């Protein structure tokens, strides 16, 4: 039994399977969608999810929804491209979850220890839009196609400033290793050293994960469910979960490179990295709550407005954030 526990606590198993990997990601997925619905309902003076475990405000509504997705028949329309229709959601979900493997759960507690972990994470994040567009094409539906095209437009908008703002922090800390970046924030958090990059990155999290006010690719009131219109059953669960997983990964990354990761936890509490992991998780959760809270308070931008914001405002701001990082380095660095 102890051997099994020791094995599970090995970082190369713990990180992909427990935290920040599969188990935590799955629980977050269930919790965050419920919270999104509940918060939006509270703001709009409704009850929101209520009847599934009424004493806790319908807290396990998503488990009921998951069971429904699991047991509902996944309908595969006659005219779709079957291969892409079935496999693209699976790959999309897997690729959205994959970047968690390079995230550290605590000091020195990493599954893949690399001097370029930030670059690996960003590289893996760029792969998922390909499959969103493939499944949009494979669905053979005009709403899906329009949704896929909108996703394509948004990719061109958010990818460059996302990379620039993340890399501006790499310039600031002088490393591409996420663990080393957290260690560099021991005294001052990245958000205070380069607030410009922090703001740009936060907005780009909203764009890249299709959250309000940039929920443009899925836009329920315009194009049904965008690229995912034809999906039902467990396939719908997968494609819907993919964007929330991406939000989870980017929120944890935000917590690590801008919010000090496991700091201000004193060093004697950092090992074993249990509390450090919780600290990172709580910070990530705050970012996720900010992202889902936007649903309740903002309307949706049009696609041209989003692209304009991306190219006219976020790209110049991201470039400026690199210069700000260089200035901080010039003045003495971290």
């Amino acid at each position: 039994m102890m051997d099994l526990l020791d094995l599970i606590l090995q970082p190369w198993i713990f990180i992909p399977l427990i935290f920040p990997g599969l188990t935590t990601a799955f629980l977050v997925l269930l919790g965050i969608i419920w919270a999104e619905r509940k918060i939006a309902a509270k703001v709009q003076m409704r009850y929101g999810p209520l009847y599934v475990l009424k004493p806790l405000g319908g807290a396990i509504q998503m488990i009921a929804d998951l069971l429904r997705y699991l047991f509902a028949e996944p309908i595969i329309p006659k005219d779709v491209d079957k291969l892409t229709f079935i496999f693209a959601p699976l790959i999309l979900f897997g690729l959205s979850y994959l970047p968690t493997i390079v995230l550290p759960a605590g000091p020195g507690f990493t599954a893949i220890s690399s001097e370029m972990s930030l670059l690996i994470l960003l590289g893996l994040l760029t792969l998922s839009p390909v499959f969103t567009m493939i499944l949009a094409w494979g669905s053979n539906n005009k709403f899906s196609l329009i949704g896929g095209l909108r996703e394509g437009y948004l990719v061109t908008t958010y990818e460059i400033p996302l990379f620039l703002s993340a890399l501006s922090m790499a310039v600031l800390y002088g490393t591409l290793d996420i663990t080393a970046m957290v260690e560099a924030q021991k005294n001052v958090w990245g958000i205070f050293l380069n607030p410009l990059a922090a703001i740009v990155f936060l907005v780009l999290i909203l764009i890249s994960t299709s959250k309000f006010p940039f929920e443009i690719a899925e836009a329920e009131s315009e194009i049904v469910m965008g690229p995912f219109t034809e999906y039902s059953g467990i396939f719908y669960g997968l494609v819907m979960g993919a964007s929330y997983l991406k939000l989870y990964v980017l929120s944890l990354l935000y917590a690590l490179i801008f919010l000090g990761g496991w700091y201000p936890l004193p060093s004697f509490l950092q090992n074993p990295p249990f509390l450090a992991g919780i600290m990172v998780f709580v910070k990530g959760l705050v970012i996720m709550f900010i992202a889902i809270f936007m649903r309740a308070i903002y309307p949706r931008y049009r696609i041209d407005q989003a692209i304009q914001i991306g190219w006219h405002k976020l790209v110049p701001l991201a470039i400026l954030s690199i210069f700000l990082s260089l200035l901080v380095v010039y003045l003495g660095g971290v």
Partner: protein
Amino acid sequence: MSVSELLGNPVALSFIAATFLTLVSAVAVIWHKSIVYAAFFLSMLGVGNAILMTLLGYPVIALFHLVVYVGAAVTFILFSVVMLREAPMVELKERYLALIALALLSILLLYVFSGYVGMTSSYYVSYKEITALLVEKYWFALIIAAIALVTTLIEAITLARKEVVS
């Protein structure tokens, strides 16, 4: 190398898997009649190439290959193809032509790299070394590359502005 040695060597296994993925994807890119599928196989080709580059000791180049040739290029190809609504099918004649080009290119690459057979990379190049090399030794080439990129950017802006005026 015996089969048992091969099974116990993750690097050799990864190399074989990546090579298989790369070759199959390369043929599928040419042979598949649907351009959307061809673009998908192009992305798999990029992934295979990135794995091979990592195994050879160049993870920085592998990552940029992944970001540029899969994340950006395939996204743009798919974006353009999907926008056409009816994805064009490739004619059989063109596919034969592409296959002949692939065969000729393979022969050329075999000829070029035949001198390196059996040699393995024994070092790891870190991104800091590459940056130092670029900034200190190849700074002029870097500036030229930057100017070339800025020129492309200006061209793109000019084209976009023209479209608005017309």
